[in-house]
């Protein structure tokens, strides 16, 4: 039995099963410029571009053969892509879909179409709305002036159309405050009429803008081959996910901008092992399955 790793050995993770296919549908373009964004999205960051409807459809068809379980749409801000609503309508014929949005650009006519699409589908359409805390004082210094109120109006609109958005916050406070902050957030949402609020907390990823805001990963923040012995690798996003970008298929949604993250042009080409040697891999290792929905586990 191999119970001791060679110190020179790389921490390798194979793609076990392609459960989630992500679409970097708005590239790195976002209407906001959050100071903790791990890929530094902004109105001016074009390092990754939009995906077209045809590209998404081609990948959906490819995904059938791979047995993909769920589809996720992210950016940047996905709703900046003018074809997003049509893409989601199409996706719901193939499987469940989740959109990660900042909630500030939603339009009633889009949500009306999406509500109808979800009602006509076997599958759930989930919205994850990013808001970093239950008050403007916590959220706005990170996400920009008035973004708390604008995002909460987005939540209101989603609830009005019958959706149950998952409010997703990056932990910009001490972990010990989780209970108190989640409680306050539930109260705030209840007061606005969202009585069964769904909340998700994400760890900070010390990449991109966040590395400038606070600090980056140190050289000791690394997963080693030895750490993977006996570890449940399905906790790592790269063991069950890949990301479609306009530059090719990336290993996971966190690392798209990192060296070596683009694995090939097709899902077949991206079906290869990955060395989890990045600092962010240590965060993924520590917290587990950080990118997927609570219903996924």
């Amino acid at each position, binding site marked *: 039995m191999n119970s001791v790793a060679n110190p020179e050995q790389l921490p390798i993770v194979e793609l076990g099963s392609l459960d989630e296919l992500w679409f970097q549908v708005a590239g790195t373009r976002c209407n906001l410029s959050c100071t903790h964004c791990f890929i530094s999205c902004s109105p001016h960051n074009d390092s990754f571009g939009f995906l077209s409807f045809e590209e998404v459809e081609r990948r959906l068809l490819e995904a059938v053969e791979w047995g993909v379980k769920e589809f996720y749409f992210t950016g940047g801000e996905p709703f900046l892509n003018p074809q997003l609503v049509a893409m989601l309508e199409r996706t719901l014929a193939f499987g*469940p879909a989740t959109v990660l949005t900042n909630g500030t650009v939603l339009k009633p006519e889009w949500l009306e179409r999406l509500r109808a699409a979800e009602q006509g589908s076997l599958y759930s359409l989930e919205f994850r709305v990013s808001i970093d805390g239950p008050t403007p004082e916590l959220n706005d210094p990170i996400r920009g002036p008035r973004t708390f109120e604008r995002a909460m109006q987005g939540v209101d609109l989603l609830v009005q159309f019958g959706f149950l958005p998952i409010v997703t916050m990056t932990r910009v406070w001490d972990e010990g405050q*989780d209970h108190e902050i989640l409680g306050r957030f539930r109260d705030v949402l209840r007061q606005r009429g969202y009585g069964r609020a769904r909340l998700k907390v994400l760890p900070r990823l010390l990449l991109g803008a966040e590395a400038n805001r606070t600090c980056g990963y140190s050289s000791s923040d690394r997963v080693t081959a030895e750490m993977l012995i006996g570890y449940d690798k399905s906790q790592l996003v790269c063991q069950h996910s890949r990301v479609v970008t306009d530059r090719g298929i990336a290993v996971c949604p966190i690392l798209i901008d990192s060296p070596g993250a683009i694995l090939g042009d097709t899902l077949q080409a991206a079906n290869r092992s990955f060395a989890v040697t990045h600092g962010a891999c240590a965060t993924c290792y520590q917290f587990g399955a950080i990118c997927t929905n609570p*219903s996924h586990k």
Partner: protein
Amino acid sequence: MRLAFFGGIYSNHLALAAAIADARSRGVDAMWCLGDLGGFGPHPDRTCELIRNNNVSVVQGNYDHSIGHGLNDCQCGYTDPRDNHFAQLSYDYTLTHNCDDHRTWMRTLPAQQRVEFDGVRLLLCHGSPRRTNEFLWDSTTSTQFLAKMCDNNACDVILGTHTGLHWQRTWDERGAVSTKSRGFINVGVLGRPENDGTINVWYTLLRTGGDVGAGEAPLPWEVEFVPLIYDHERLACEMRDERLPDEFIQTILTGWWTTCLEVLPSKERRRGQW
């Protein structure tokens, strides 16, 4: 063949006794439980005794694995602190009220079982064939995922439980036309109602071969989900006497889930009250 499948019992020995009697009255040839014997309800030993005395075959659930090995928690896979709080209350009660003999027996239960009837290859598991505590919800599990799971495991039908909600999906075997011969069945649970405001629980009948109902193009197998009424008020009294959380008792009496809600996908969550 007529086969009965019970999902999580969660110590609801009254529903289990009613289900065994109901299945027998329908002339079933065999009965299985797909795991999670304990949790939520009172007197876990009573469920184990009923299962072992009535020739019900059992696949090990995450709860049975935890109780059998005396682990610290139930491995249910909840992510929300409130859900985990209630899961722990339930687990601690169950662990201290199971006798050593039942715990030893739980350790021996298989993680999955393969059986074949009338040419239909069944794979019985708790969550999924690849992970005991995997949640396969109707609205977040694509058909291609299920088809691949069947192909990878060389079976026609996968049966599981774990989520607490019954559902089924059928599809054509690769290359076949409209046979719908492959399928996934979540058999539901006997442990608690389905978060729909009714107090009944569910179990599943599967028929194969000559027991499949006549139709224009009879399928190799067919499913019937059976709603089961039992003495839920007596169960609530027993839970009260055992000082189990009022939140659990309310679920038994109203049919609405009050805990373990945060893992529900939106379609399933919207059907409930909370």
